């Protein structure tokens, strides 16, 4: 087993051990951070590895959230199949958006994804009769059960979040070390060269976007199940910006970066808001400081200074 695999398995094991050690508040926070880190990992595959800067990933998160939530609200399906539907919604949406948006690149790609995401947000509002619009809806406790386990219980919630996070982290680790992942990086570094080497770059970019969208939807669906709420605020532009920030802070194009960035940002706001009401000021200054002094993000700095092979 290589050092790299050991490192990632070590994090997974550490997070499992923390389940039994953490005080209640931190325990709940880490569970939430793991769910959101899944979103960041999904985003990182498109942005960090393939170089697709999307400003619309909230639509995939929302597809998972509403796919899962609406199925539970209007059908007899139970939590796990409903979550599966959420995943399928995310994958389907990513495929459709990708087929159109990947005809563009650069800034145009940013705007096209932003627009599609905005349309998804407006569609959620438009069908308020089903989605309850901006207010959103509560997912009943009775629907939030997997194999008889209540996802609202702190232990079950933590372990479910941990399982999802671990699986997605290891998938992402495996993906970037396989040939497909290396083609993603080649496209990010120089798409023309990748094409000259004979790769169908459009297909690879589409593949990256669909994987990314599906993982984002997995996070959205899991959020709905674990925290019992689906609402349109999760489809706003802000929630497209968040994963970009997390990934950039943690280190774009690194496997651990998304988790580190999510963790850092959560505690930055949580601790700063305890000190002052002007916590957004602190968050803003921290972002500027990071771009000035640690532009590769946390994991990026580790890679540059300490560990050259960190994936």
């Amino acid at each position, binding site marked *: 087993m290589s050092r790299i695999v050991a490192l990632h398995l070590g994090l997974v094991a550490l997070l499992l051990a923390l389940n039994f050690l953490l005080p209640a508040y931190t325990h709940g*926070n880490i569970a939430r951070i793991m769910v959101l880190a899944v979103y960041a990992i999904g985003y990182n595959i498109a942005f960090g590895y393939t170089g697709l800067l999307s400003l619309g990933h909230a639509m995939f998160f929302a597809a998972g959230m509403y796919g899962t939530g609406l199925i539970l609200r209007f059908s007899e399906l139970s939590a796990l199949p409903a979550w599966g539907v959420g995943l399928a919604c995310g994958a389907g949406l990513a495929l459709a958006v990708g087929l159109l948006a990947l005809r563009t690149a650069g800034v145009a790609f940013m705007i096209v994804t932003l627009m599609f995401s905005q349309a998804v947000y407006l569609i959620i509002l438009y069908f308020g009769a089903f989605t309850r619009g901006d207010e959103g809806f509560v997912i009943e406790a009775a629907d939030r059960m997997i194999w008889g386990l209540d996802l609202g219980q702190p232990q079950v919630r933590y372990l479910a979040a941990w399982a999802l996070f671990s699986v997605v982290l290891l998938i992402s680790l495996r993906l970037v070390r396989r040939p497909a992942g290396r083609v993603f990086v080649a496209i990010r570094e120089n798409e023309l060269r990748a094409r000259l080497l004979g790769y169908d770059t459009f297909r690879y970019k589409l593949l990256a976007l669909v994987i990314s969208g599906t993982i984002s939807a997995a996070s959205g669906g899991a959020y709905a199940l674990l925290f019992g709420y689906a609402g349109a605020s999760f489809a706003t532009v802000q929630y497209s910006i968040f994963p970009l920030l997390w990934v950039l802070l943690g280190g774009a194009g690194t496997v651990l970066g998304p988790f580190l960035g999510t963790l850092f940002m959560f505690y930055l706001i949580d601790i700063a808001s305890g000190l002052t009401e002007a916590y957004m000021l602190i968050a803003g200054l921290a972002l500027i400081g990071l771009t000035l002094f640690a532009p590769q993000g946390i994991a990026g700095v580790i890679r540059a200074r300490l560990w050259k092979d960190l994936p």
Partner: protein
Amino acid sequence: MTKSTDHPVSTSRRTALKTLGAVGAAATLPLWSRYAQAQTSEPIRIGFQKHATGIGAAYGRWYERTTDAAVAKINAEGGINGRMVELVTEDDGTDPKRGAEVLEKFANQSKCDVAFGTLYSHVVIGSAPRAAELKLPYFVVSEGHHVASGILNRWTVQPGITDVKSQVQAMAPFVSKTLGKKVTMIYPDFAFGYDHRDNFSAAMKAQGGEVLEMIAVPPTETSFTKYFPKIPRDTEVLYHVMVGPAVLTFVKELGEFFGPNRPELFGFIDSLEAVDMASPGLEFLEGTYFWEGMPRYLQPDTPDYVKTYRDAVGIDANGASVNDAKDVSTAAHMFGCWETLHVIKAGMEASGYVGPKDRQKLIEAVEAMSVMPAGLAHPQGGKLFNGKTHQVFGPQYISQVENGKLVVKHTAAITDTLYADEVDYTAQSF
């Protein structure tokens, strides 16, 4: 003392001192006993979910001022069960995700006994499931119909402010008798607006009136004139309600659209909450009518307990801050914080609340409440609490703009605001 960035510490201290002076006479315990109590027992900790940033910030600031005043008053009177009340304020960013996180912080980190104070519906709905899981009594001050509609849970109650459904239906008799039978409605295109649309049109029909046209405006809109041509010519009454930072534009453009010949206007004060009635462009509102949750302007027949309440919160005769006449309060909603804190006090005293293990008893004690007489604890008016639906019912005020001030013309009785129960939370388990 809670942190506040909107006004310097000296002013809040002054307000607090004034509160002490105003209500000191009413204190029931002698000074030495209050001192001893404060020395010997742990404070009761109330987590205040405040909209300090985000779209709800204008409301959040006044909710905090009212809450601070109520806590100072309760403490001056000896606290709850002889224990001082300590407020733990957290910003929820007017965001449902952060709202849920803040509840976890109250329950698990700052060890609050109860959580309180949320206004925006999506934050309430996003936070309520967590309140139930944490078994944390959650007292919302939202005026949303979400509590009484049955979509929330046994741990979430709204005992300090009436819900939009009862407010809206209580307006229909006045509108149809005094203003006209043919109504056109303009409302925001989301759940809050739909509550207005559905309940008012039904209530109007029951009164023999009709709603000619229903015009929904997206919540993100910043200019409104293009929607006004949809108002039918034969409209007798235009019913308007709008929320968000663009409300003043909405009302101004309404005036510019109609010019000299307008229909009767009936609005919900939400369209102008925290907005100075003397703002440029609002002159045309003279003579129009508004719903008010509680009168903003000091009325000639205002009872003494309302004056005491207004002094404690620090608003002048025009409903603006005593420190800044331009800083207009959210008078029609913020009283809910004051009243809710008094309900929490009454509930804790009735249930002999000692610590978190008594949270269930607290909810049961609140559910057992019924009549809440008007007075300093309930300055908005006498109320009726429905323990099954966790919702309070109370009087509603209709005011007319006279010389740029809102003058109460009609008070809808509680009986006009009642509707059939939609849920029985007491049948649910804890």
